[in-house]
């Protein structure tokens, strides 16, 4: 762009030059192509917001390129300064382009169509003789044009000017302004919004506050920490599967609480059916099992509550057929201990898998049981979900079914195993009950948890409105054609000589037909007969 090397002598002249350059269609075109090119880079190179692990892997494999890409923002194209620069230039260019166009449109809307003096120079032109006088001819022509929804101006009963198709420019301007609005709304919405995930066990309540999010919480650049404070109680989670194991539906029944804790209403959150409340949108995102576990040392209760369990399936494993894993960390014991739980929600399906060798999905709770493994040593990560076993050693392990209680140190069951337990789990009862100060664990219930995605984006309605306006404006901008027609009549001994001229800026083929029928209609309305010599229709 030559804008920057404009004459230095006068600042205002350079500003004018820059402004003119930005206004030109060519600049807009080049900026559009640059925007496209930048997006190509963003789709070919892994991006930090979408796949940080792939970025890290790339940097390990290609140290030099990795550092070049990082320094130049190629790993976050859509957040980079140069992407913002292109967008900003496009912005300015759009505004520079739209302001004068809008002003011109408003001016044109106020003006009446302008009369033309020489009609024979227009692409479509006819001269003909009719019996009626000039005043009748112009009146009839004006009527005809109005009926065809032209804007019409009549002057001195001898000339008529008509124009049609300003909707094209209106549509085009609406489209371009809407695009601008769209960009602004997106930037404000994403900039002041946040997205994160909440894990809620059935029966529990979660509050929208920074510390309660699990995993990565993404906040916009201009977000100032105003989380909504909304409370969400998970009443019930349900899912449904086809026989083939393909999921059909996931649904969370929730109670929504106002920030002051009072009950607001109930809602069902399903895939594709989010709940909207108090400025946040709540989506069904994931689910899992939470074993309710009670761990005690003698009479002292060390842990009592649901353990949120996750999965770690291998890529080729069916996640529904793999066990769920959770950890209970007992920080108050010396040495510290952790119990790793491996849950099989459906014992029957599990044993069928063992028998048939084909992994069976465990989608429902059916005599659930867990394997447990006790670790002893130093807990490095007491507050996190996983377990770092670098300073720990494995001690006892065993099995626990729902409704049982076990002696964790001895690895045997104190009570429970019996009727509901599959045969292969038997024979592990403690021979003589629990020791008085033994570490015991019971597994009274299995619940489900739901992972909900919580997002706040205040401008979604504006983005939608702008998007609709884009489509609505685009149609006339592409399909309406602008046409102008003039009719002039002057007296002749037998009637009038009529000149009709006009042109279309777009879709000229259609206009030729329209013009011909218009001429016929004017001639007929002025008492003439239609037998035009084709030569007369000038179309150079």
């Amino acid at each position, binding site marked *: 762009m030559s804008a920057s090397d404009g004459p230095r002598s006068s600042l205002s002249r350079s500003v004018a030059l820059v402004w003119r350059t930005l206004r030109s269609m060519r600049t807009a075109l080049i900026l559009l192509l640059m925007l496209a090119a930048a997006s190509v880079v963003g789709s070919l190179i892994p991006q930090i917001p979408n796949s940080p692990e792939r970025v890290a892997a790339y940097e390990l494999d290609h140290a030099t390129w990795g550092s070049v890409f990082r320094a130049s923002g190629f790993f976050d194209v859509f957040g980079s300064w140069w992407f913002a620069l292109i967008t900003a230039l496009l912005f300015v260019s759009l505004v520079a382009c739209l302001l004068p166009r809008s002003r011109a449109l408003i001016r044109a809307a106020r003006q009446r169509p302008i009369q033309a003096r020489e009609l024979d120079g227009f692409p479509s032109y006819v001269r003909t003789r009719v019996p009626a006088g000039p005043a009748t001819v112009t009146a009839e022509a004006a009527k005809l044009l109005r009926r065809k929804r032209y804007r019409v101006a009549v002057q001195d009963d001898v000339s008529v000017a008509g124009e049609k198709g300003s909707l094209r420019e209106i549509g085009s301007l609406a489209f371009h302004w809407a695009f601008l609005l769209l960009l602004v709304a997106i930037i404000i919405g994403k900039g002041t919004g946040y997205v994160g995930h909440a894990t809620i066990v059935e029966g529990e309540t979660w509050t929208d506050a920074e510390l309660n999010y699990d995993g990565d919480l993404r906040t916009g650049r201009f977000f100032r920490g105003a989380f909504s404070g909304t409370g969400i109680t998970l009443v019930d989670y349900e899912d449904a599967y086809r026989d083939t194991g393909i999921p059909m539906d996931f649904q969370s029944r929730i109670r929504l609480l106002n920030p002051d804790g009072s009950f607001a209403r109930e809602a069902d959150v399903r895939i594709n059916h989010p709940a909207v409340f108090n400025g946040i949108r709540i989506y069904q995102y994931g689910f899992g099992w939470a074993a309710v576990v009670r761990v005690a040392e003698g009479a002292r209760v060390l842990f009592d509550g649901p353990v949120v369990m996750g999965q770690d399936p291998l890529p080729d494993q069916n996640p529904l057929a793999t066990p769920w894993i959770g950890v209970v960390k007992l920080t108050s014991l010396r040495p510290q201990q952790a119990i790793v739980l491996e849950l099989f929600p459906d014992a029957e399906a599990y044993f069928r898998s063992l028998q048939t060798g084909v992994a069976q999905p465990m989608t429902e709770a059916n005599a659930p049981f867990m394997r447990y493994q006790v670790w002893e040593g130093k807990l490095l990560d007491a507050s996190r979900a996983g377990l770092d076993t670098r300073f720990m050693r494995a001690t006892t392990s065993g099995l626990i079914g729902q409704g049982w209680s076990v002696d964790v140190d001895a690895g045997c069951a104190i009570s429970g195993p019996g009727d509901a337990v599959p045969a292969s789990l038997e024979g592990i009862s403690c021979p003589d009950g629990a020791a008085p100060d033994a570490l015991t664990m019971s597994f009274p219930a299995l619940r489900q948890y739901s992972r909900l995605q919580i997002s706040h984006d205040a401008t979604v309605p504006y983005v939608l409105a702008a998007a609709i306006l884009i*489509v609505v404006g685009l149609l006339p901008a592409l399909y309406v054609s602008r046409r102008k027609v003039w009719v002039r009549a002057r007296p002749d001994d037998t009637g009038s000589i009529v000149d009709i001229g006009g042109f279309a800026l777009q879709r000229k083929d259609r206009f030729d037909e329209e013009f011909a029928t218009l001429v016929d209609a004017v001639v007929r309305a002025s008492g003439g007969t239609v037998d035009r010599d084709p030569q007369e229709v000038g179309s150079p």
Partner: protein
Amino acid sequence: MTTAQWARLSSDAFNAALFGYIAAMIVSFAYLAFRKGWLHTAATAIGIGALVANAISIVARGAAAERTPWGNMYEYSALLTFLMVLGYLWIVEARAKVRTVGGFVYGLAVITMAMAVSFFYVGPTALMPALNSYWRQIHVTSMIVASSLLGVGCLFTVVYLLKLSGERRTASRLQTQAPPPIMGGSIASDPSAPPDFAEGADEPVGASAASRRVGLPSSATLDGLAYRFIRFGFPVWTFGVICGAIWAQQTWGRYWGWDPKETWSFITWVVFAGYLHARATAGWRGTRAAVVALIGFVSLLVTYYAVNLWIAGLHSYAK
């Protein structure tokens, strides 16, 4: 009929359509070369037959899977070829009376179908719940309609560039004072409808009669056809992207996330917006605008194929 029978019918009809398009392509090119009327009649008849087979394949697939038959790349491709050929037969042959470019369109249909069977075949299966949305239906349908329109438009751009270079060569060889009758892409003769749109107008006229590519319509006609298709496809694409965003908002809680499929549909949109601008920009009309359209074509192909085949993304449903 049982599910298996429907599935069988669908793939038989798919193959019939593929071979039909191949035959129609060969016969169309033969017509372009030898200009015998019966060849054109035969090409159209075969083309319509293959189109019917294509439609049967789509309907049977829907019956086999018990849902609308556009749930994965294989199914998109079948619908895409159907729409491309339908659009061609209707808009180009029946309305614009241009008959010599059929071979290119059938060729595009053949490539699309061949890609579908070799890379994307999957049996008729049910969909994940995330895909089970009303907006998804509208989104996918409009994206396929738009792809077919833009694809055919770009195809005409390619033919236009071929023809234009032929016309230029002829013009310089004949050393004529006057330029060829219609310089391609000039806005002066509105490209959306050059005067030679009437029946038989794709016959060679004037200086270009001596051109070796005698059979093709004039470059202005081709440019006009390309513009017609792209102008039609662009708002549909715009609408489709917006519906996709609404669906994404509903399903993933964000209307836009720059995942590769989204990014490429944006790129394609921007490039075709560039094409529309280029046609209105002095100095860009004609060849340069055509080049922008070709970039758009490449981008369309990447959006449609490469993203699914090579670039990982959230839109894994398209596997």
